[in-house]
């Protein structure tokens, strides 16, 4: 019974709650049961907030019983997991770093306020690469998260925890943060749906900053409609974030529902030549599934063309200058002075503030974080600024222009979400560059500030999921939800259900 419940989509759960077929508490408890069973082998969570979640569920159930749910979003009462990069009042928040171990935030991120206001119980905090820096979650200071499809494989990153939690049924929904693909690539690796909204579409207040000009909070879900419904809960203008767009959330749920009708007549889709849109250059399994998905889109009436965004070839290089530059400044505050880890210098070393900061940062940060801080510090140095940061910003402008021009010809753009399916643990940890190269498909959306979504489009020969990515113009997130939902529906017809039905779930009892 409880397995049936947790396998429902968030939209279905919400409906059952509204119809009082199930209470938020029952649902929350069912998810906590899955978490308890799955976590020993999954390790998607860094902290499970069972008591708080149940208390929130009870509070919502009471409201519902009192008929006091007027104005609450559709997902009211449905539990959710939160990437441990987003601050939660009273619940430890670590960014998967030793330097923040034990820190309990005194405030809630704007998205958390919205989640709480929606009566959505928070199940806990999910694992990630330290400070969201990585593409496999192997850089977490607190251990790996396992891919539910294959325990030898990474779940992607940095949001491997949120993606694994959602695809393993530990949570129907999760929040992620996406700086260079940290929501979409793990979605692709785990057969789930992940969305990076338009930059400024969701408040960043309370999202621990990695690279402020690229970071964006977004939904992780098992269906496009669920992602859209969550997008509407968390989106919208926030006066506490200067980069927040003063406009309401685009009508993404309506667009997703429209897409479920499987009619894409008049929708112009451009396949991006430079990042696998021709189906070439990427892992064969990825290319094959991508091309089949394109045929599905055509069969639903979409006009598909090939589009060139010439400067995308430079976007990876630009990203790996801009991102670490901002990282080097954003992570300067972790110095042992005010919160988190403090390591005093050993005896014999002068006990100065500067030395304490140095020893704390040495002990508190992992290698990948240090690598990026050093890179960024160098790129911003006097005499190098123009050559590195300055040039990278120029590339960024060109990438933005490329997208703008392309969107004059087509409604949405498309590419594989990642060049490969999930790789094995340890495969890329000794070669940072190989790890970085995997971000080539996701980075352009962050550089350009445009929204992008990853939807599953099948599995490769090793039964590992492949992701299909749509991009939409800034502030038109709805444009990508429609074809994404249509593709999902068409493919589910061929699969006979959600892609996750192809995944073995030994952690679920029965």
């Amino acid at each position, binding site marked *: 019974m409880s397995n049936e419940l947790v396998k429902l989509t968030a939209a279905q759960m919400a409906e059952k709650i509204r119809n009082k077929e199930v209470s938020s508490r029952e649902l929350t408890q069912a998810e906590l049961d899955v978490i308890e069973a799955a976590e020993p082998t999954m390790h998607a969570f860094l902290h499970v907030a069972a008591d708080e979640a149940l208390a929130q569920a009870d509070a919502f159930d009471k409201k519902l019983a009192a008929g006091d749910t007027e104005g609450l979003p559709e997902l009211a009462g449905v539990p959710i997991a939160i990437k441990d990069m987003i601050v939660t009042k009273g619940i430890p928040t670590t960014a998967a770093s030793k330097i923040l171990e034990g820190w309990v935030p005194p405030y809630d991120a704007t998205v958390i306020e919205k989640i709480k206001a929606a009566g959505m119980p928070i199940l806990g905090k999910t694992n990630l690469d330290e400070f969201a820096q990585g593409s496999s979650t192997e850089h977490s200071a607190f251990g790996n998260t396992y891919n539910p499809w294959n325990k030898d494989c990474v779940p992607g990153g940095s949001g491997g925890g949120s993606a694994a939690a959602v695809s393993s049924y530990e949570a129907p929904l999760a929040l992620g943060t996406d700086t260079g693909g940290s929501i979409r690539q793990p979605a692709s690796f785990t057969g789930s749906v992940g969305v990076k909204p338009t930059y400024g579409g969701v408040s960043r207040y309370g999202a621990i900053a990695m*690279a402020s000009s690229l970071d964006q909070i977004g939904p992780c879900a098992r269906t496009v409609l669920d992602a859209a419904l969550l997008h509407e809960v968390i989106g919208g203008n926030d006066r506490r974030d*200067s980069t927040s767009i003063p406009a309401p959330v685009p009508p993404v749920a309506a667009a997703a529902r429209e897409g479920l009708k499987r009619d894409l007549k008049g929708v112009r889709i451009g396949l991006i030549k430079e990042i696998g849109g021709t189906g070439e250059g990427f892992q064969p399994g990825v290319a094959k599934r991508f091309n089949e998905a394109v045929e599905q889109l055509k069969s639903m009436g979409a006009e598909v063309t090939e589009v060139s965004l010439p400067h995308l070839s430079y976007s990876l290089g630009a990203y790996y200058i801009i991102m670490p530059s901002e990282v080097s400044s954003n992570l300067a505050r972790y110095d042992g002075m005010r919160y988190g880890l403090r390591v005093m210098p050993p005896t014999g070393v002068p006990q100065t503030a500067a030395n304490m900061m140095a020893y704390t940062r040495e002990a508190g940060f992992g290698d990948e974080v240090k690598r990026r801080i050093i890179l960024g*510090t160098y790129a911003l140095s006097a005499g190098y600024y123009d050559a590195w940061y300055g040039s990278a910003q120029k590339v960024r402008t060109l990438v933005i222009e490329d997208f703008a021009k392309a969107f004059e010809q087509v409604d949405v753009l498309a590419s594989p979400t990642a060049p490969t399916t999930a790789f094995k643990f340890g495969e890329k940890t000794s070669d940072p560059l190989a790890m970085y190269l995997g971000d080539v498909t996701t980075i352009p959306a962050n550089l350009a500030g445009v929204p992008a979504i990853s939807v599953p489009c099948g599995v490769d020969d090793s039964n590992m999921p492949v992701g299909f990515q749509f991009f939409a113009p800034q502030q038109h997130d709805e444009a990508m939800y429609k074809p994404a939902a249509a593709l999902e529906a068409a493919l589910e017809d061929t699969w006979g259900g959600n892609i996750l039905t192809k995944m073995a779930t030994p952690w679920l009892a029965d």
Partner: protein
Amino acid sequence: MAEKLMKFSEAVKKYDPVIGLETHVELCTNTKLFCPAHVEFGAEPNTQLTPVSLGLPGSLPVINATAVDFAIKLGLALHCKINEWSQFARKNYFYPDMPRNYQISQYDKPTNGEGYLDVELDDGSIFRVPIERAHIEDDAGKNTHVGGADGRIEGADHSLCDYNRAGVPLIEIVTKPITGVGERASEIAGAYMRTLRDIVKALGISHARMEQGNMRADVNVSLRPSPDAPLGTRSETKNVNTFRGIEKTVTYEIRRQAAILDDGGEILQETRHWDEATQTTAGGRLKTDADDYRYFPDPDLVMLHITPEHIERIKAQMPEMPRERRNRLQSEWGISDDAMRDIVNAGALDLIEDTVKAGATAQGARKWWLGEIARAANEQEKSLDDMPISPSDVAEVEKLIADGKLNDKLAKKTVLGVLAGEGTPSEVVKKHGYEVVQDTGALEAEVDKALAANPDIVEKLKSGNMKPMGAIIGQVMKATRGQADAKAVSALVMAKIKG
């Protein structure tokens, strides 16, 4: 170790001094520059905080629009080019009083660009100080070093951080190198700071209290052999927060650097500190190429867009500038340049203006504020502002005189009574019975007595020698315990003699 100094007059004969001032003005907004934390001087440590001012993970800055308007006001007053687009940048460096380990400032796109400030010198001449920029930034917290001597970090065993000040809005006004100052270098530096203080106060954008650190200056001084030589290496004396300190820093640095140059030495580019106790500057940190703040545009803040229409709106709210106001008041009051300068230097301009507004004549107001009250303030080492007498009190005394209810002597006693905290002028008058004797009969009797006792004086007066009149008035005054109106006494005496 005392440093070698050259005589000032000799130094400025041999070298051409160039000065520069970087002044931090703390704005008096209700809340901080990037968050709604309250700003209040002297609050309990670490009570005026939000996640933003503490730089907590996830927190984001949002610009305080009032602070921007204050900056525009100052920009207009300093004839600056107000940039339509300005940008905040991060200045990265590690220090325990900086919650984020970067300061949010403005770098290549400040809100206020080039401008100038005309400064009036002691001789009434005007010196134009060129302004490079006036940009917005946030302040750091405050460290208190415990366990060492004089609260210095050297020898301290621990330090306390108070982040109340962290995030308080500042404007930094940077002059261009000020050339052509010669022997008036320190006078110009001091006059510039005073003028700036007056403007900032008039604009109402800062409490401008030097002693609370609302205004503090970094004083740059360099010497060169002649006005056509390239600029010499400068020293930067940090955070000087008294006018006299600024003037003395300039003088001291000119003398010190001249002595070094004269010995064939080299000036180090360094930061120094003004030591009030020894009246010297002391060497601090050497400035090197390693000082790299890695400025870059703050991605958390969008560019500031200041439209011409907005600037016009602010222009319409600009108050009269101090120099224009002084000129206007001087002509309204009909006083000389010297008299006006005395008033300004005594810090009595506002007080006298308010006293006149309360009904006194300019002459009367000036007499009290620069006379009796100034004397008392001097004795108590207080500023006129802090004396327990208000402009309306002074105006009331003047009215009592005009109404013939007080003579000069009683008026003085009344003022002293107010200063002693005995109440308002009328309360003091009532308490001590200071009123002039209005009863002509009583006065006449005293006059008669005085005349009868001094037949020789009566003779002299009758013969037209008016000199001894004072003696008679004195006696009557004595008899009435000073409460007679001297004019009335004099009139009575004349009537008696003629009669």
